[in-house]
């Protein structure tokens, strides 16, 4: 874990070295639909824009956008236009997902102010429509052509396959580590797992996979860090950004075990790998664009999207849920309402905690709420 923390801290310096050596750094903004494998294979360096948790970045954004705009995306605007964040200052190019309006509008704000070279990755929202996957494949092809032009390098199948396999391994290892949390006493804390996941956006992937492998080997046979009866909590809802760790800390300080999370684009999705089927771009598309809603901006939700959450409850033996609601990300509030109803049927308590990266300013009140919730889960016999 120390290696990974160091990797995150040293990322801006690392990017500078890569740029000095001629590499192009491509920032990616969205919910995790942009394949980093493709960017690496085209000879560029991806940098997922996932930093957050700092009120100052949000305030910086208010100079450009409306206050009632997604907290996470305001932070991205603040970092991109504020000019104070070395990591964000390193970018040569921006790829923005056109699949949720916050990412789109954040991209437009940055383009309008800075004329930063930007391209979209078009992602259809009606996932059950027959032409949707084809559109996404075309979007990936356009991105590939853009990246080839940016780097001056032609994408080779060999290179792409190499990175697809590497990322498959990365996801498999993350999945295996996460599955260790299904045990009565998980060997890794929730906060550590979230940080481990976030590190995947900052570290060179070969090195990261090596670290993951050693972490997994170390953990797979170890005794867990939690005692029996510890309330098993899941965090669902809006993305938890890298650096936005107040809530996980509060839960763990209150004696809860975070055993699972579904935080949309806030973590790397690791539940499935790319299945190679001959055409690599199509294989990638099928992995990144599943035929069911993976976030609240894909329609129709039907039962598929709520089921994403209830499945986790079952798989990880979750006994209580905290819904993390960033301000002005209304899609999650609507979804939280529906998921809350499903959880009620299952007898699983859920609490919503709202944040505009201001939890620290109301720390005692939030601590009391979280402690009370964890206690409720514990005393209601819902502990492990």
């Amino acid at each position, binding site marked *: 874990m120390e290696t990974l923390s160091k990797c995150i801290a040293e990322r801006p310096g690392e990017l500078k070295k890569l740029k000095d050596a001629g590499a192009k750094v491509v920032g990616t903004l969205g919910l995790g639909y942009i394949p980093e494998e493709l960017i690496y294979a085209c000879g560029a360096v991806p940098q997922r824009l996932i930093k957050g948790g700092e009120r100052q970045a949000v305030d910086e954004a208010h100079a450009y956008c409306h206050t009632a705009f997604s907290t996470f995306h305001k932070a991205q605007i603040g970092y991109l236009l504020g000019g104070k964040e070395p990591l964000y200052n390193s970018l040569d190019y921006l790829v923005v997902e056109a699949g949720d*309006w916050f990412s789109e509008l954040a991209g437009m704000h940055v383009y309008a102010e800075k004329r930063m070279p930007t391209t979209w990755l078009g992602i259809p*929202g009606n996932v059950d*429509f027959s032409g949707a996957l084809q559109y996404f494949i075309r979007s990936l092809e356009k991105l590939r052509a853009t990246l080839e032009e940016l780097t001056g390098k032609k994408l080779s199948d060999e290179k792409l396959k190499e990175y697809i396999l590497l990322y498959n391994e990365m996801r498999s290892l993350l999945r295996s580590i996460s599955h260790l949390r299904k045990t009565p006493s998980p060997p890794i804390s929730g906060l550590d797992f979230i940080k481990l996941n976030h590190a995947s956006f900052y570290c060179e992937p070969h090195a990261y996979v090596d670290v993951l492998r050693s972490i997994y080997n170390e953990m797979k046979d170890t005794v867990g860090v939690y005692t029996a009866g510890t309330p098993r909590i899941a965090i669902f809802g809006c993305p938890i950004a890298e650096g936005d760790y107040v809530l996980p800390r509060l839960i763990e300080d209150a004696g809860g075990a975070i055993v699972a999370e579904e935080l949309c684009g806030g973590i790397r999705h690791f539940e499935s790998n790319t299945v190679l089927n001959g055409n690599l771009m199509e294989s990638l598309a099928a992995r990144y664009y599943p035929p069911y809603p993976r976030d609240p901006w894909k*329609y129709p939700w*039907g039962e598929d999207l709520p089921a994403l959450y209830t499945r986790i409850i079952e798989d990880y033996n979750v006994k209580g849920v905290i819904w993390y609601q960033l301000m002005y990300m*209304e899609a999650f*509030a609507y979804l939280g309402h529906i998921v809350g109803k499903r959880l009620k049927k299952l007898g699983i308590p859920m609490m919503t905690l709202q944040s505009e990266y201001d939890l620290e300013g109301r720390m005692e009140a939030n601590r009391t709420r979280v402690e009370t919730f964890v206690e409720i889960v514990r005393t209601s016999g819902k502990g492990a």
Partner: protein
Amino acid sequence: MDVYDELMQLTGFEPGEAKEYKSTLKAGLQKWLVTEDDVRFAITERLPKCWSTNLEGMRKILGCWLKEFIRVVMPTPEETKVCHVLYPQPGMLYLDPIKRADPSIQVGVPDCLATLVGSAYFGVGWKYVEAAEREGAAIEQITCSLNKARYGLHVLGILPRADASLAFHTFCEDAALADQLIHEWDGTRTWTPYRVRDIPFAGDPFDADNINYFAASLKEGHRKAEEWLGIKITDEHRKEAMEILGRGFIEIMSPIWGHMKADPAPLNANDVIYATLPIASALDTGYDDFFKANAILQEELMQMVEKGEGVVPKGTPRVAWRGVHPWGCPWLIPMCHELGLSADSPEAFLFGEFAISNAMDAVGGEEDMYMLMARLLALISVVGTSVDFVYQSTSDHMKEYGMDGLISSTYRPCRAFASHSLMVARMIEQKMGLPCITPDVDIYIDRGDFPKERMKTILETFADVVKKSKAKREGVKQ
């Protein structure tokens, strides 16, 4: 004569028609939770002060909206199935073929009616919004009141459960999101025609893949409607709908825009919206009365322009109103007039002369209805086109009308509006050197969170700046 009689008089009903319609009106208003006091408010405060009810054509247009408002909750006995779309999307073009395929299907844009009539005439929109907020449309997240009202109508049981709800995502993410809540609430079947917004940042706004996908998605929406409603939509139905669109553009929109170039403008901004919007919305009650009312209005406008009459004195500084005109707060328009500003020519979105004219030019000759819609929407949506394109149509409009400033309304709950409004205002200020403000108003439902006094202070200051800026520019010219 009671308040209901007065309401019908003020909204252009003929005496015989009014007598026959009164019981339907009362029952419909009751269903919409409009009380007698609300009707009194409409006839004494709202309608006479915010619209040109001195004009017969305008009264009749207000009446068309009122009848549609009642119809959506009081279907005819023959209407057994219901299909909804939502504003903002060109409901007429999309719903008319469905109505033609089977006249026993009630088609409607209920959110538009809840706001344009329920809120704007009677001030009751907050009731629908609060119902939505009680059932998951979280108040603190500050979301679109238009879509909250739509969901609230289902929660309150004001609307019948729709057999098909086809909420475009083109403009608005909240529309598709609200549909998910509506489906959860009463099982309404929904589908989302979707335009991916990977729009070119500059240059030609038409990307072939993008337009083709959207057109196919629109077609799929109709296919769903056919399946769910048990109908068959033919080329003929689509052609007839396209003809109404063309007729609306030629007979209504173009002449009104022409008249509005006069100094002084003969209509206020509220009038313009209500006179043109049915072409973008949809009328289950049909378009005949609406075209007739418009014909009367245009006769009146011609005379007014000839006589040099208007809603403000000649020479009053003019400012453009960009974005959806805030019909949720129709009092803003008379307030501007009191402060010596004419903000009567809205631009952009579904009503803007330049946005629509440019779009109509660009799609001229398109015979496939879905392609036509896809291409039109690519040019007139809020976030469906590039900021540079929006800037261009706004600045063209301002030059053409000799505008002295810009009110680029932001609307806190609409992320798209708020974002584009701020970007465009900054560009107009920087590139054209004209004063701009970006006031925060609720464009759909006035529930008091944008108080009149605060708006008055903002507009008062802006009016001073505009007048000084105009005087300075005219001084330089001389």
